[in-house]
């Protein structure tokens, strides 16, 4: 493609927008609204997932081993278990450490009561591994594998917490999927309408182009440019709004509701904004491209 042809298509696309400026503005406004809502949900979802992820890191599986196994044998078993891909981290607690922990938890201030067990650790044989998973949804699978491991006596885990977090994740996923789907459909419909109006404005021009021998690509290009520009504008405007809104909202919530900020650690904007920008821009361009590309197809019949 010649550079002059590229600039021509770009100029014609922009001219299309200016020619029916109100339709174009309406499309930009609607896509902006859709992408703004998307950004809002995106922020909420990634923040919730961040909390869920943090929670996943604190919910562990505790594995106890057969009493006759020595600490060395248990550590060997631990190494073997640690090779499971689902496991993100493991902590070993020896029987002595377990007893020390129990003493400090339950006999604090009354250490003399624990003296009776000085030479006879009541938790002997209670050496354990605390296992943390990469993804809480794999807990059942890991527990099953652990229970079948020779030398493992008992596996303790919190099924309800895992299920709760998993279903919460799933609900968020479905909800966001549905909302984004509806927003996409609305945006595509609106751009498609705008392109239809532009095509009717250019009907005469398109006909002449066809008779002269312009390729479909050449006829289509200005409309696709129009769709892309509308999509891009529809993405950039809400991103600017979201940038300031997020900063304000996080600052406000942290200042006004300290309890929330203790439970809920907001992700810094710098961490989510690049992803949000990439997704929003791709979404805007994608909606613009596909809506214009497919809408103009019916005007290309020769």
């Amino acid at each position, binding site marked *: 493609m010649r550079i*002059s042809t590229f600039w021509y298509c770009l100029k014609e696309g922009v001219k299309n927008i200016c020619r029916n400026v109100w339709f174009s503005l309406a499309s930009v406004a609607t896509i902006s609204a859709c992408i703004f809502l998307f950004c809002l949900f995106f922020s909420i979802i990634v923040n919730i997932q961040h909390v869920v992820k943090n929670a996943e890191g604190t919910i562990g599986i505790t594995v106890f081993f057969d009493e006759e196994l020595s600490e060395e044998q248990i550590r060997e078993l631990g190494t073997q278990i640690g090779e499971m891909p689902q496991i993100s981290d493991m902590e070993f607690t020896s029987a002595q450490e377990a007893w020390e922990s129990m003493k400090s938890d339950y006999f604090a201030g009354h250490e003399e009561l624990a003296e009776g067990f000085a030479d006879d650790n009541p938790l002997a044989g209670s050496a354990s591994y605390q296992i943390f998973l990469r993804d809480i949804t794999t807990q059942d699978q890991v527990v099953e594998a652990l229970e079948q491991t020779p030398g493992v006596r008992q596996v303790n885990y919190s099924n309800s917490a895992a299920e709760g977090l998993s279903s919460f994740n799933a609900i968020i996923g479905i909800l966001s999927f549905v909302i984004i789907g509806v927003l996409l459909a609305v945006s595509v419909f609106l751009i498609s309408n705008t392109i239809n109006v532009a095509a009717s404005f250019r009907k005469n021009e398109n006909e*002449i*182009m*066809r*008779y002269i*021998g*312009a390729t*479909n690509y050449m006829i289509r290009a200005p409309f696709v440019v129009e769709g892309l520009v509308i999509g891009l504008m529809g993405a950039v405007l809400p991103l600017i709004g979201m940038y300031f809104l997020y900063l304000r909202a996080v600052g406000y919530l942290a200042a006004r509701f300290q309890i929330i900020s203790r439970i809920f650690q907001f992700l810094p904007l710098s961490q989510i904004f690049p992803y949000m920008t990439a997704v929003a821009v791709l979404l805007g361009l994608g909606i613009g491209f596909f809506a214009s590309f497919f809408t103009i197809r019916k005007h290309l019949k*020769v």
Partner: protein
Amino acid sequence: MIEITNVYKTYDTGNKALRNINITIEDGEFVFIIGRSGSGKSTLLKLLLKEVEPTSGKIVVNDMNLGKMPRRYVPKYRRRLGVVFQDFRLLKDRNVYENVAFAQRVIGASPRKMRERVPSMLQMVGLSSKYKSFPQQLSGGEQQRVAIARALINRPEVLLADEPTGNLDHHNAIEIMKLLDKINRMGTTVIVVTHSNELVNLMRRRVITMDRGCIVSDEEGGAVHED
């Protein structure tokens, strides 16, 4: 050369627009196609433009069999034809120069080529001085000249003119016919569909007369007499 052999065209509505059409047009010929409304003249032009397909029969234009031509080759084929319409079909938001350059631009010609060809084409149709004018500032005859310049800028082998003088007064109609004659003498095959018997008689060229989808006469240097 254009060869139309045993062509029939029936539209989906059942309207039999063309029946057993056989025409051969040599390179560099000037041919009038005349006939009443609904006689099939425009359908014939549409077939040559590959805007519609024949129901049966064969159309070959400059060794290209239109029936076997894939859709993707249609734009390239159309670059070898020039088309002029009764209603000019100029772009109202562009001046004369831009209207003519438009035909070059949409086929991806280089700006250098456009700068070379557009002024010479405007000179040929006698509109050099009006290159900055917009269509609404021109007379009907001048607008048709712009349309002819646009049709010729890509140097087509065949020029198809569908009622090119239909919207013009007598004087302008004759001027346009003279221009088409000049173009023909430069080597372009010209096919003109018209209602104007007067112009046909004036030009004394080959005349194909159509009626109800059939060719009723095909005469060299023909003249038409009012019924």
